[in-house]
């Protein structure tokens, strides 16, 4: 078989990093949290979801390839498997980096009929971005999400760990004002909250 019609040489595809080439970033606290989580489950595979939450916090709110590889490294799973899990769930930010605050507008059914789309339009105009985009200053990312299950507060939106609703143009203005003033990233805060509620008080400390 000649190489006449062969597509791509072996070097054309970038190869995945070997385990010893990874630049591990998990803090001591993260490792302690992982240790605590191992004790909850009979195997390490079950820690993939909690592990990804830790990674989302440790890597600043965005699960890039290195973050996924590090989770795979700690849990002794294949990169592809962990990536498959991470990309399945909508709350892991795997596609692109996000801003400091993520504004997630629910437009599903109850919110839809209570005026979520005008609210979303207002947000788009005010921030100058569309759904899935981040403002130029990197502060806000706007997302459309499915039902947040706070339909009594429709139209509702989520920023970090908190829900806000029902919102109107006035309350949105106030909310954005507050968020701009906030130093800490609500995206990271939220990942941290999620890790904390799962680990509980760390036994090792």
């Amino acid at each position, binding site marked *: *078989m*000649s190489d006449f*019609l*062969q*597509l*791509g*040489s*072996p070097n*054309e*595809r*970038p*190869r*995945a990093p070997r385990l010893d080439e990874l630049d591990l970033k998990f803090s001591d606290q993260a490792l302690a949290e992982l240790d605590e989580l191992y004790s909850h489950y009979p195997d390490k595979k079950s820690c993939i979801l909690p592990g990804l939450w830790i990674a989302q916090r440790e890597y600043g709110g965005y699960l890039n*390839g290195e973050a*996924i*590889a590090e989770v795979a490294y700690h849990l*002794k*799973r*294949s*990169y*592809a*498997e962990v*990536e*498959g899990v991470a*990309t*399945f769930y909508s709350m892991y930010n795997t596609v692109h980096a996000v801003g400091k605050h993520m504004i997630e507008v629910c437009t599903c059914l109850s919110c839809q009929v209570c005026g979520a789309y005008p609210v979303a339009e207002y947000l788009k105009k005010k921030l100058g971005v569309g759904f899935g985009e981040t403002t130029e200053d990197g502060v806000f990312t706007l997302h459309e999400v499915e039902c947040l299950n706070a339909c009594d507060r429709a139209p509702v939106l989520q920023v970090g760990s908190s829900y806000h609703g029902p919102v109107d143009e006035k309350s949105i203005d106030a909310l954005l004002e507050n968020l701009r003033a906030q130093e800490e990233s609500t995206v990271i805060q939220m990942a941290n909250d999620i890790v904390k509620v799962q680990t509980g008080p760390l036994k090792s400390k």
Partner: protein
Amino acid sequence: MATVAATDTVNIVINDVDLQVPKGELVVEAVKRLGHEIPIFCYHPRMKPVGMCRMCLVEVGFKQPDGSVRKMPKPQAGCTLPVSEGMVIYTDTEMVHRDRKGVLEFLLINHPLDCPVCDRGGECPLQNNTIFYGPSTSRYIDIKRHAPKAFPLSEYVTLDLERCIQCGRCVRFTEEISGDAQLAFRFRGAAMQPSTFKLTDFDSKFSGNVIEICPVGALTSSKYRFRARPWDLETSEGLCLECGNGCNVWLDHRAAKLVRVNGRTNEAINEEWTCDKGKFGHDYYNSSKRLTQPLRREGDRFVPVSWGEAYAEIAAHLGAKSAALVGSTVSNEGLFCLQKLFKDGFGSENIDHRWTRTLPAAGERVAKRHESSIASLEHKKTVLVFGADLANSQPIVHLRVRKGWFLNETRVVVAHSQTTDADSFANLLLSCKPGSLDDLAMGLERAVAEAQKTDVQGFASFKDTEKTTSVKESALREVAAMLLEGNASIVCTASIYNENKPVETLAALAKIAAATGAEFNVYAEGGNDEGAMALGVMTGRNTHEILQDCAMGDLNALWLVGADPLTLHPSRRLAEDALEAVPFLVYQGLLECEAMGYASIVLPMEAPGEHDGTYTNIEGRVQRMQQAVKNPGDGKPAWRVFSELLVRIKPGRPSFSAKEIMDEIAATHPAFAEATYDKLEKEGTPLKPVIENFYM
């Protein structure tokens, strides 16, 4: 009424035919007993059923005490449903046909239907099922899903996501069979796609299999791409000789050229899998470096000569002070004729085919090389892989061991100084310091002896063993306990002869095996190395001695049969010196190579698929490969060269066919008694266990 002679059966009805089938058999399999078929995509008999594609929906009901049938309200997936007593299955109702049509319509709305330019066209399950069961037109008028076409996922595999029907076969293959989990589904819903991590290189030793199991043209072979259409292909049953496993393959050829190698089912060996070396490693058939005619050196260059001239030249130069070094792809017949030629024709016994660092003498050799058949490995309770990188050197054995671990709770212990693919699933890893395998084996022997409360005088203490190997006492004791539980197998390969003190290591392991009742295997490595050993080809000087003799000027002539010492021998220096010094060198081979530069005579050899021949795999299974393609030049099979030459030197009746030679082998070698062409079985015939002249 088809019946099964087993007590654990259930009575079911398929399309109004009463049937008795084993309890728990899947509906999709049970239906085959009637010669019926349920169309499938995601189901694969060698992987766990998942019920993803819904192509196999059937109607299912249960017989009621009053004789009526109560149908389940929803259609059921036949690929996941085990049969149970009183089950009534309908595969041919209006509803079933409507459902199949519906599923196919769904699958096709996002399929590009680019069959005319798809390699799978003509042998595509999606095409076939659509023709049999699908709708003739589509009601879909919206925009199809788009993805990059012909994405090179690796050197071998090309991915076309538009064609993918998300059946998950490839993903499950890497999870369940090869175990490298290189592929996974990414994203969800309609965006779901199989992929490697971040679309990096698909780095697997078994990636070629996903091409074969893909039910559409989503994963195609980069090497076979656009080279033929299935209906232009002829195919022949072939064997792979890249290693000694003896995998069965289909050799697909077009216009007498080999274009593709696919796995062929042999339950005793490779089931249906191939490794990438086997699937893509047959470049030599069509290589531009192929030797096509006999050549004779004249000064700095080679000139073509006739076979007769070449024979005359060889006959004039070879005698008692000559030797032969053999590669691993010469057939049993070739090896036998070579031996005869040297013994009867030249009066020399100097033949060897081994290239390891240590070449044990007759007295030091292990008596048993293959107690466990490949297939039996999946049913072992414990498998100890000692000092072997199975995934690289015995890929199919690796798959079996992993299968046992994955399906049958086989406990796998890996003892090695390097990292191997088996580490990822090993229940216990004895990772020792480089060069300490011998100490490890002895430590293990002590652990077994202690467990059996026998004398441990003369053994190193566990502390010392830990110092030299870094393996802890507790781990050794654990392995000993596992081996003593019975039904265990110790797996080594001939590569152990490249380690320190292999003879002592193997002796220790053999004693452990004897003490624990474990089966012991030192599998050969090359394509027909086991055949060479079973035939007792080498009796005189060994490889090292032959090369040394050449270098010292003690040998007048050397014949290289499909072997290049410069790449095979551990000491390149010695090989160079030998080839430089030897006055007359015959190189017989498939391709041009470095050693050829030293040759006086060059003989073209036929590749294994170009002539009839038998080969013996690592477990002593003799299999026959018939001619699949024609030699591109004037090459001859090795056995013919040897027997033609012998007639010239010592007139007599020559052998006319490989079959005849095999009869002769069977008559002279008791182990091969059942391996004549008339008696060879479909899955190959195991050698008769004759403990005689066994050595490594």
